[in-house]
């Protein structure tokens, strides 16, 4: 029994790692996508930004598939409840991700409908960046769940104040991260614009963060007693302050690292508040926890083996690919 619990906790952590990895990597290309019309003024600048994410966005998005697959395998009951319960919201995300996946390739080659595919890229980036936070806010603040473990709310249950503010916070974090990445990969006027945007977004990030803490205080006061959450909150604040300082000095690499750190801090807070719940129920006795929602010990063990063999390889060749495309992106937009 004890070994099973260790495995369950390991998977709680690992799914957090996969989702955090997703937000760090796909986070910047979602941010660049959402900011495209604000950062780029000319077709050349658009191509430049697109070239900065073109070779890597697809690999980044796989982190979401890995996280989703791992949730299915490790905690099938949570996967089933959330994905069927949040049906319409997640369909919205799926439509956005479908359009986004084809948008860059199609924008480059289907010139007659370039505007449509560009809108698909921008919209397909904004929608997930917003909805992920709303969905996470819901499982954190708690949703109505019946005795069978089924979601007992409606679409409008999802649109409560705390989840909406979490959505806003997530969006700000993605935009900050995307702007920081754009500054790393470009130069000149475009880079300056990215840096100005990054500053605005980081300030908005801070404001949304304070608002989120207020929301937690109102709707989930018990969470204020978690010391670890406060430590991660301090990490977020510190990272944001250092982010602004590094931005001022023009240290693009460091600003990107700091927006990553702020993102990790957010995940730390969520993990600390949430453990051992995966989906908090309005009636705490019905919450789906690492214990009540997990797969068997054997499945968790096999999955752990898969992760321990597979993820170091993934991280290794992902680093290789980023090194191949390191430095400023090709301003000519070679590739598409």
């Amino acid at each position, binding site marked *: 029994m004890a070994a099973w619990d260790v495995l369950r906790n390991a998977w709680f952590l690992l799914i957090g790692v996969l989702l955090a990895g997703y937000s760090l990597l796909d986070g910047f290309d979602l941010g660049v996508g959402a900011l495209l019309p604000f950062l780029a003024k000319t077709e050349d600048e658009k191509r430049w930004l697109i070239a900065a994410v073109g070779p890597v966005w697809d690999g980044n998005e796989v982190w979401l598939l890995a996280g989703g697959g791992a949730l*299915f395998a490790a905690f099938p009951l949570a996967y089933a409840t959330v994905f069927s319960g949040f049906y319409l919201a997640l369909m919205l995300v799926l439509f956005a991700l479908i359009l986004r996946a084809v948008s860059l390739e199609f924008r480059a080659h289907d010139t007659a409908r370039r505007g449509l595919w560009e809108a698909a890229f921008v919209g397909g980036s904004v929608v997930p960046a917003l909805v992920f936070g709303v969905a996470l806010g819901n499982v954190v603040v708690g949703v109505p769940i019946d005795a069978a473990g089924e979601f007992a709310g409606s679409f409008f249950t999802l649109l409560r104040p705390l989840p909406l503010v979490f959505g806003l916070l997530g969006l700000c974090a993605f935009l900050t991260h995307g702007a920081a990445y754009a500054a790393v990969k470009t130069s000149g006027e475009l880079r300056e614009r990215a840096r100005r945007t990054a500053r605005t977004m980081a300030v908005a990030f801070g404001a949304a963060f304070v608002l989120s803490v207020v929301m937690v205080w109102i709707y989930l006061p018990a969470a204020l007693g978690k010391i670890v959450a406060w430590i991660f909150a301090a990490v977020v604040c510190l990272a944001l302050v250092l982010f602004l300082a590094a931005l001022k000095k023009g240290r693009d690499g460091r600003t990107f690292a700091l927006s990553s750190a702020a993102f990790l801090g957010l995940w730390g807070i969520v993990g600390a508040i949430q453990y051992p719940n995966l989906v908090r129920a309005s009636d705490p006795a019905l919450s789906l926890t690492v214990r009540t929602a997990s797969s068997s010990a054997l499945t968790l063990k096999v999955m752990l083996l898969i992760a321990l063999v597979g993820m170091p390889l993934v991280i290794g060749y992902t680093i290789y690919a980023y090194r191949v495309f390191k430095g400023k992106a090709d301003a000519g937009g070679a590739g598409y």
Partner: protein
Amino acid sequence: MDAVFLARLQFGLTAGFHFLFPPTTLGLSLLIVIVESRYLRTKNEVYKSLSAYLVKILGTVFVMGVATGIVLEFAFGNNWAAYSRTVGDIFGAPLAAEAVFSFFLESVFLGILVFGRNKVSAKSYRLSAVLVFLGAHLSALWIIIANSWMQTPAGFRMEGGRAVLDSVWKAAFNPSTVVRFFHTILGGWTTGALVAMAIAAWLMLKGQAAEKAAVLMRTSLVVFAASAILQLGSGHAHSIQVTRTQPEKMAAFEALWKTMDGAPFTVFGIPDEKNERTLLAVRVPRMLSMLVHFTPNGKVLGLDEFPRNERPPVLLPFAGYHLMILIGVLFIVMGLAGLWLRAKKTLERSRGYLKLVLWTVPLAYLANETGWIAAEVGRQPWAVYKVLRTSEAVSAVVPAGNILFSLVLFAALYALIGTAGLGIILRTIRGGPGDEEAGVRKGEF
């Protein structure tokens, strides 16, 4: 319309549309590895430019596969929550493993193939091609492990209404995994190779890029013919496996209403399920028994052996199975004819053959789809054979209206990206293999 039907329709639409792309990727990635390896050995620019040409096409095919594949990763939770709860202990793991071992590999190294020709050495580039090939095939392996477990579940026990994993090995390599894996990848190789042959044929008919077209035709023809011939063996082995492990499915494939010693093979017919007979049947006596038992009097179980509520529908599996076999046989003939024309050195001038190649491309896709339809409809009424009924596998909390709404949107979205994607692929093909510095796609915005 009830939720079960709509959920099935939605899964059928999303998986069926998705299944246009991965088989193409399997075949094209194999050809790219072959062409890149030739380039590495000979340093002949013809290979380099052909590889760039195929990579461009693969790039478009791949993003469409990604776009339509995301839906499937989450579909089990969205529409099939009861399924996910009941068998998640076993079914989730291969999906997660597919992401970890395949999707990352494919995505990261396809990025290098499409964007990195001038950023990595020729050897690293070829290695990237090999890794994309490997990723695509591993992906097929994982998803077929998952799907085969639904067909012939093994390595588990039932505990409190949930399937619990007992043996990883038995669950992964259940009785149908290996044969279905080979059957599927051979279908992919045939498809990708036929697409490449058709491109070469089109260039030949137009009199464009003669040398490159000849090289492309040679390479893809060999892969096509070999895959089509090997498919005969894998298809046969698969049919024997189905007869042994899912006899009612084979009975549906063959519209065999009653158990028979010395069962015939039905070449053509229209199954009339209500009256349990086959109209306009053309049968070869004893051939089914010969094929699956290697003896003319072997006993083949008919649908009458099974309770009515455990029988699959007959019409779709029968039609799908026979159409697939018919196309398979045509491809073997086409492959052999191509090799014969090549030996005579008249292939480039055989306009009739080249046109045949061009016009039969949709048949490769039809064969993949009909084979898949036969396999999945033939599994009904079970989501997991003899473990969980499809009707008990759906999400209890998702109203039919929501499924219909998303179904309509998926259909519209797929129509849009399907036509746009096909347009782009055709335009890329019409552009021909370039003479420019291969791998750099400039001036195409």
